[in-house]
């Protein structure tokens, strides 16, 4: 039988309330209850994720925990467990790889799959989506929603419409019709600013946008206007939507930050926190196979004045101790001694694929460190992030904040509203 030929078939697979669902696996009593992941109710910090039940009270991610506690006093507040999410994210990734070689984890809990040409193997899109959905559930015990379209944009928008626990296929040719009744703000990449500008032009629905001439949009918004015009027809245009699924998008920087529950001016504590952050950054550099040339310190004081200071290395690195060394120097040089600090951050950037220069004095030292750190990474994979660390970082022990950076694709942070899942 001749299989029908579809132009391009993109799946957007988005895990339903991912962090909360993972927590429920570890504590089934949380099921169905308003749950807030991110920390204690009276802690400084923000909501990483909220269960559907909590969202009904207006709780959403990135909201201060204390605000969430006010909106939904009965909510159960739990600490995030980034190592659990990473572990499950890996499982999700493995399932997806059974379905297409072209998988791009856009964040820890969502991915694009290019399914073009897999009909012979997996059947028609809807059929393979149902199989994927079932396999995801049986392997990970997690629900996901799947959007199917001829573009990443359509796939993404339709998975949002399919939520929770659904599959939605926008038939080829029906893209504009599908988008027309949606609010312009539903288009990925259209933020508050663009939305306001469009509203000012009396463009509220995507259909209104599609009726505009490309030229007019270009006149008003420049290049972004052309991208908008394309998006209104369901095309991938502008920003990282231009990339093919599976294209490796090299990250520009990798960073970790920590906000203290109570501001602190204790040098030892600050330094050990920086050690810990350096370790986390280095780990992600190694995961991605990057060597960073520039190391940056971020320092925010009690009064929110923030400074960033960077140092460029002669030879790029991906090693904990070398990153910390730079960070410590920057910190010592720029911290107002004793001044209470609210937030610290460590960032690595200017990546290279390898450190090519061999060492004259200690030819084995680099290799020894690399072997040691590979072993450490392995332990962390197995027993969690805090299983092992450099001595200095021990005192700075803090929970890693839950973030949505994709596994193995560090630093790429697509604009994402976690409440849509």
């Amino acid at each position: 039988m001749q299989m029908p030929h579809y132009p391009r078939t993109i799946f957007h697979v988005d895990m339903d309330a991912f962090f909360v669902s993972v927590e429920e696996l570890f504590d089934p009593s949380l099921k169905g209850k308003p749950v807030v992941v991110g920390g204690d109710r009276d802690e400084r910090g923000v909501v990483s994720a909220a269960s559907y039940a909590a969202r009904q009270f207006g709780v959403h991610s990135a909201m201060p925990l204390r605000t969430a506690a006010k909106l939904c006093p009965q909510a159960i507040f739990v600490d995030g467990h980034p190592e659990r999410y990473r572990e499950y994210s890996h499982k999700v990734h493995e399932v997806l790889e059974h379905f297409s070689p072209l998988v791009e984890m856009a964040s820890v809990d969502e991915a694009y799959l290019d399914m073009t040409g897999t009909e012979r193997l997996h059947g028609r899109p809807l059929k393979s989506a149902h199989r994927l959905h079932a396999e995801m559930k049986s392997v990970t015990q997690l629900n996901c929603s799947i959007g199917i379209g001829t573009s990443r944009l359509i796939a993404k928008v339709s998975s949002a419409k399919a939520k929770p626990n659904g599959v939605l296929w926008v038939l080829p040719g029906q893209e504009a019709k599908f988008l027309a009744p949606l609010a312009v703000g539903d288009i990925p990449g259209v933020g508050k600013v663009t939305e306001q500008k469009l509203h000012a032009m009396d463009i509220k629905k995507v259909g209104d946008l599609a009726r505009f001439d490309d030229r007019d949009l270009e006149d008003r918004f420049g290049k972004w206007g052309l991208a908008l015009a394309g998006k209104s027809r369901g095309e991938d245009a502008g920003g990282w939507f231009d990339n093919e699924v599976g294209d490796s998008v090299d990250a520009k920087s990798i960073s970790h930050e920590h906000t203290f529950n109570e501001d602190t001016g204790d040098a030892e504590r600050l330094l050990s926190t920086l050690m810990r952050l350096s370790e986390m950054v280095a780990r992600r550099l190694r995961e991605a196979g990057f060597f960073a040339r520039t190391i940056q310190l971020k320092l925010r004081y009690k009064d929110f004045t923030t400074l960033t200071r960077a140092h460029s290395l002669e030879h790029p690195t991906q090693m904990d101790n070398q990153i910390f060394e730079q960070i410590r120097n920057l910190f010592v040089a720029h911290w107002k001694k004793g001044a209470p600090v609210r937030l610290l951050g460590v960032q690595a950037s200017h990546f290279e694929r390898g450190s090519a220069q061999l060492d004259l004095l200690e030819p084995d030292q680099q290799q020894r460190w690399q072997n040691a750190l590979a072993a450490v990474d392995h332990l962390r994979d197995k027993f969690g992030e805090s299983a092992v660390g450099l001595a200095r970082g021990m005192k700075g022990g803090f929970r890693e904040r839950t973030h949505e950076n994709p596994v193995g694709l560090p630093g790429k942070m697509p604009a994402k509203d976690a409440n849509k899942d």
Partner: protein
Amino acid sequence: MPVEVAPAVATSTMEITVGKFELLRELTATQGVVERKTTIPILSNYLFEASGDKLSLTATDLDLSLRTSCNAKVKKEGACTIPARKLYDYVKLLPDADITIRLLDNHWVSIRCGRSNTKMVGMAKSNFPGLPVFPSAGAIKIPAGVLRSMIAKTGFAIASEESRYTLNGALMVLKPESITMVATDGHRLAHVERSGEKFDGVSGEMKTLIPKKAMDELKSLLDSDIETIDFAKDESTLFFRVGPRLLTSRQLTGQFPNYEAVLPKDITKSIALHGEELGAAIARVAQFADERSRAVRLRLEKGDLKISASSTETGESEDSIEIVYDGDPMAIGFNAQYLMDFIKATGSGEVKLELKDAQSAGQLRPADSEDYKYRYIVMPMRI
């Protein structure tokens, strides 16, 4: 009962007249030592001391200090401090005439020259840090030209990253009849030795780590027609007396790496090249090297050395140089800058490039070096 009030203690005085040219010469010589970004304000000041017929100027950043002097008409002996950078910038703009410097109340300093009249805000001279005193015995005379040449041959290889503390300086080894200087940043090493000198007062081996900043300062101090300098050290400080100027530097403590262990021993390939020709080829090719890694590839073939580089942004480039070589072909990568540093330090003569394999250190040295035994060891890059 009437109380006798003690008259205010006469504040310290100082009044001198000095030629603009003489003053400016010494200000220029000391600028490098003045700390610019200091958190200790007094360190951005000069200490001026007038006595006899001399004005002496001192600048320090606590690690390094430089004391120099010039002739002056001293009307009132005394001392004061003056902001160093501001004074330098101002004196440069003054006409070429006599300058009168006078200490006023509250550490202000009056500077008059012709029809120009300025009062600068100084600080109490008692705040100025005390300086180490040149040891009364044990000074060693070193020919200035030798020291200058050795610094030029090694200074560039000192680590600029502060992380490897003991590499932030060069090692000077004095023996009764030789002087050696070694510097390395962990990726390359420059080693120069000169025999046939005579160093009175040195017995056995005298090892000294000279910090990079002191090396740089010495290099410019030695650009004069002084023939010999006096070198001395105590537990914490190094002293270099160069004519009327005295440079002191805090010693670097710690162990300089065992450099002898890394000097290549099993060289199997050796080619002779003209330094100038090699330098020009590398300079051309390096235009197309990766901007950050600066990697260039050297390929030895029969009768031919090919030097090439490529980067995705700029393209690729190759130069070839005729050589006498009939060994097995081999390719090795180096940081172009490292090679250029050596060629710049050796000048235009013939150089030897000696290699073992692509993973082992290469060695460069001048082919005929009668006065100095000079060798430069560079680790390759993976290519």
